[in-house]
């Protein structure tokens, strides 16, 4: 994180609620079939949250395309295939199974958000965190208005499937980062 000029505590706060949820479900869901359906037919058929940061293949794919379309001309262009083929999807699933790659996707997410919105927050780190967290939870390609709307909603639960108690994702991230 630091090597990429990012604040590790800020990034950790964004995914903190997902880490809580992952701990409760990691051994209970059998993901093999979902992985297989995704590799075979793509996200239209199967798009599920995976790993410590509960990232969906569709989220990873969007980030990959954004990174490779950006001006970075980065080393990842030789590694990542963004076509919608079984081989590319299989490679993506393998990446999502790796904690190292989940961190890399998180770095790309924060960088993508910084590029779009970073200058608009001034010194208000807490508002920035809530906004980034909402975007992480509901989809960072949504409009600013839609993300702001998502910040108000209590849709996050820690049950295996849909629970009875719902929390505000942004409140949990703010709780994690001291001072917010």
């Amino acid at each position, binding site marked *: 994180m630091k090597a990429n000029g990012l604040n590790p505590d800020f990034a950790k706060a964004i995914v903190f609620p997902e880490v809580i949820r992952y701990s409760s479900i990691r051994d209970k*869901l*059998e993901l*093999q*079939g*979902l*992985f*297989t*359906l995704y*590799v*075979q*037919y793509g996200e239209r*058929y*199967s798009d599920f949250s995976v790993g410590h940061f509960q990232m969906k293949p569709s989220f990873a794919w969007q980030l990959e395309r954004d990174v490779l379309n950006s001006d970075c001309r980065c080393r990842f262009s030789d590694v990542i295939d963004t076509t919608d083929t*079984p081989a590319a999807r*299989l490679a993506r*699933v*393998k990446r999502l199974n790796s904690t190292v790659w989940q961190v890399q996707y998180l770095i790309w997410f924060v960088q993508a958000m910084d590029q779009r919105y970073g200058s608009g927050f001034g010194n208000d780190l807490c508002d920035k965190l809530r906004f980034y967290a909402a975007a992480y939870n509901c989809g960072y390609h949504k409009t600013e208005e839609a993300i702001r709307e998502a910040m108000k909603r209590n849709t996050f639960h820690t049950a295996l*499937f849909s629970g009875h108690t719902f929390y505000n994702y942004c409140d949990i991230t703010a709780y994690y980062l001291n001072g917010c």
Partner: protein
Amino acid sequence: MKHLAFLLLMLTGIFGTALPQNSSSTGSPVRKVLATLQPEEGILYDESCFPLGISGDQLYMVTMLDGKYYIYENGQRKGPFDNLEKGGYKPCEKGSEDQSCHVFNAESQTGNQDNISMSDDGQYFIKFGGKGFGPFPYIKALHFSEGKTKFTAITMNAEMKSYLITSDGQQIALEGDTESLQMSPSGNTWVFAVKENPGMDPAILKMDFSNMTPDDMLKFAKEQEEKAQKAGPPKAWIYSSNGPKLGPFDPGTFSSNNPAFLKTGGENWIMAIDNSLYVNGKQVKKYEDLDLNTCDIWLSNDGKRFAAASYDKIIFSDGSVYSYPIKTNTIEDAGKIIIKWISLENEKDVVLYSRPL
């Protein structure tokens, strides 16, 4: 006939190992379409059950089409339902056949008072055959064979040094930390990995740091660091009851499921290293295009035939390859291991396959 066989060989060579569904060099699997989905109808995987037991091939599947739910049960499709409660949805019962990992994990008996006693001074004894084996300051793992005719244990002394202890009198000092002790389903065979820990000097545990000056502590820390550097990268070794000590290996290779016994496979143990499959310590197959995971490997009772699955294929030891198994499991029928798996073909056919290992 020879020409035909040659042609098939040529085609196999040209197209690699990716044989089409239903192909097998030793015989085709039995194929049965369990259900056919409507266009745009999708399976709700988490709500669906794919029991693959000997009497449970009738799937219970929940699907969604145009925002409505459908339930497939006993060969019939019911619905549409606005919600699953209206359709009488029944959550899957997760039996042993539904477990996603096919490694056999015997439960250690260290928590069972029937098998362990403690002396007044806090030392442990293993109760076996009317006698007490010990004393041990700590018993890390303890397993009994079927009928409790043998036991195998990992113990530690006060210096945290590990020992293998067996009921037939073996006591082997182990140079490092042990991963979980793995036993065959019968309890007669065992295997485990030992990871060297050169950075950890057991003598440290007995040292009194309170009398050290900051300079002494700094000097001591430097000595320990040099010692660790001299020792080089840590190594790991495999100990088993049916072969010599093996290694050295990269310690990162091993985990609580590797090496392992399988639910099939009898007394034979496996390990996966760099996508190579080892049976009883001998390399039997190097996979080039499959990520080997001990949870998705099946082995015959004699240890000679095997299969391995990943997200996109299942490969048998005879070279047969089948695509996209959503769910896999095994049953034993008249001494034969039968592998069953479900695939979704052409985005509509839910197909059950089965074939002997």
